């Protein structure tokens, strides 16, 4: 695997204001959907981002794309800060970074034909001159994602969920991107279709040398699909490690609890379930210190005071005070 860093996210923050007052101008509070998240993606790899619903995974993805404006922080694509790009630069960057949305039913314009949906980026970015050439390119893209040529003049509603997701993928590929952010691309699909779409994504990655950021709440899918995985909790990245390292031995107590919830297909294996107490706190009023401390089975005094930073632990990253000391404490529980 190539080791060149293609995308780097530095201290990314996205706060959504909660407005109130008579004129709706006063900011009463902020929802910290993404709160100081940093990570990098290497060329050709697949980075998974997992976490519960509402932990800010999708917002992170959309902020990278500038579909949502970041409150603070940098997104460096090939070393260039996207958040400060001009309109013209942004247009080109849009081509390089594409997104596949979760809901294949909502993400395609119902009034456009499949051919038009896939063709539009070709026209917009001037990737293909001439009607005939564009149509050939559209057909080629459709073939690449496993759609039949005669489907070119159909509307999205005439397709099944899996096929629609294929249209979404073809549309993203039409831009000839180097990174695709896949925002829960298979969670709206039947399990049998999920693996087809995942295999398609993997084949395309090999063929076209794509880099993926794969956002999901499905831990088994992520394990199957990703090289490295970041675990998010309440808008923060709590752990980031290679797939095998993370699944074999999660460091952060939250990651550990999360992974223990994955069903294991082995009746003989005794699995200890870590049941987390309580609910996820509101992102508008996150706990002081470590966001996870009210639910953490390993809670220490410092956890409610100081926010732990994502720090390097022998090549993997974890944000937890358990690993502050030079020697790792004995783990119980």
């Amino acid at each position, binding site marked *: 695997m190539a080791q060149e860093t293609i995308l780097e996210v530095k201290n990314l923050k996205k706060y959504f204001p909660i407005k109130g007052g008579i004129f*709706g101008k006063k900011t009463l509070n902020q929802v910290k959907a993404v709160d100081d998240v940093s990570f990098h993606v290497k060329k050709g790899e697949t980075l998974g981002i997992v976490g519960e619903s509402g932990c800010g995974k999708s917002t992170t993805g*959309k902020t990278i*794309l500038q*579909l949502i404006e970041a409150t603070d922080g940098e997104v460096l694509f090939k070393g260039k800060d996207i958040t400060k790009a001009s309109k013209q630069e*942004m*247009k*080109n960057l*849009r*081509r390089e970074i*594409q*997104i596949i*949305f979760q*809901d294949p039913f*909502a*993400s*395609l*314009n*119902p*009034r456009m*034909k499949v051919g038009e949906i896939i063709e*539009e*980026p070709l026209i*917009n*970015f001037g990737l293909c001159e001439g009607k005939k050439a564009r149509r050939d390119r559209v057909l080629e893209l459709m073939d690449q994602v496993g759609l039949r040529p005669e489907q070119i003049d159909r*509307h999205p*509603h*005439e397709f099944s969920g899996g096929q629609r997701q294929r249209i*979404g993928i073809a*549309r993203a590929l039409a*831009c000839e991107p180097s990174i695709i952010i896949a925002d829960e691309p298979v969670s709206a699909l039947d399990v049998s279709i999920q693996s087809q779409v995942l295999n398609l994504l993997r084949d395309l990655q090999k063929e076209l040398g794509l880099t993926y950021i794969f956002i999901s709440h499905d831990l088994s899918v992520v394990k199957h699909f990703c090289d490295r995985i970041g675990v998010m909790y309440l808008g923060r990245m709590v752990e980031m490690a290679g797939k095998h390292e993370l699944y074999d031995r999660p460091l952060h107590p939250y990651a550990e609890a999360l992974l223990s919830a994955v069903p294991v297909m082995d009746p003989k294996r005794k699995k200890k379930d870590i049941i987390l107490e309580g609910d996820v706190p509101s992102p508008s009023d996150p706990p002081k210190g470590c966001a996870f401390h009210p639910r953490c089975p390993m809670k220490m005094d410092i956890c409610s005071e100081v926010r732990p930073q994502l720090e390097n632990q022998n090549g993997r990253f974890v944000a937890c005070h358990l690993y502050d000391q030079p020697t790792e404490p004995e783990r119980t529980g």
Partner: protein
Amino acid sequence: MLQFIIRRLLHSILVLLAISVIIFFSIRLTGDPVTVMFAAGEPSPEAIESVRENLGLDEPLPVQYLVFLKNLATFDLGESFRTGLPVTEMVVDKMGATLLLAFGGVFVAMLIAFPVGILSAVKRGTAVDFFGRIFSLIGISFPNFWLGIMLILIFSVNLQWLPASGYDGIEYLILPSIALGMILSGILARLVRSSMLENLSQQYVSTARSKGLKEWVVIMRHTFRNALIPTITFLGIQFGSLLGGTVIIEQVFSWPGVGRMIIDAINQRDYPVIQGGVIMLAMIMVLVNLLVDISYSLIDPRIKAGGGSS
């Protein structure tokens, strides 16, 4: 598609039949036309009787109705009690002016409502949105006859820019169209705004943005085209009330249309003219609704006319 149109046409005929019953019998509750005709003098009973016979009013009501229906089937709406002119000709003559006015009203409504609604939605929560909504409210709140009189006062009497009454060229259409379209534009602007907002939050809009399209392309080509679907339905339904609204506006602007003709006819108990005018308006109404239904399938590919699922 053909099956659908045929079914709808049959349906329309039933609707028109029901309307004909209601008009026919309800106007006969308003009083005897013959007494109105002789309102000035003291006619002899024989004279009244002979006029009745002439007009066919001596027959029992059901028979009169069947005769009316039989003639209607051949588009013969009878003759005016007053002038003796064939009603079909009279109605066709005036209908052009009325339709022109109604379309003028719709055009003005769209001309105002589309930009206001789109801007309000796109600039949601800003001053633009605020004024857009205030404007909608003002548009809805004005009675159109009052607006008509005000327009005449300002633009015809004081500024003398535009003619106040009659129809003799395109400039005569402007003021009545504005008076007629204003209320509609207020409601329409709100509908466009809410429909735009609903569509702007859809994910396909994010898809369009991620394609790197310019914002106005995203708004006009992707969002607005989808937001247009409920708008067209609404306009189709409103076209009927607009035709009704022309009755008042035609009165204010002395517009030579069907509405004014019907009002005059009601004053004179001129049964055939009332019947004929209302039936024709109803027919146009039914026809417009049919066209709206057909146009759905053209605008929204998800709807296949005829209810066939895909």
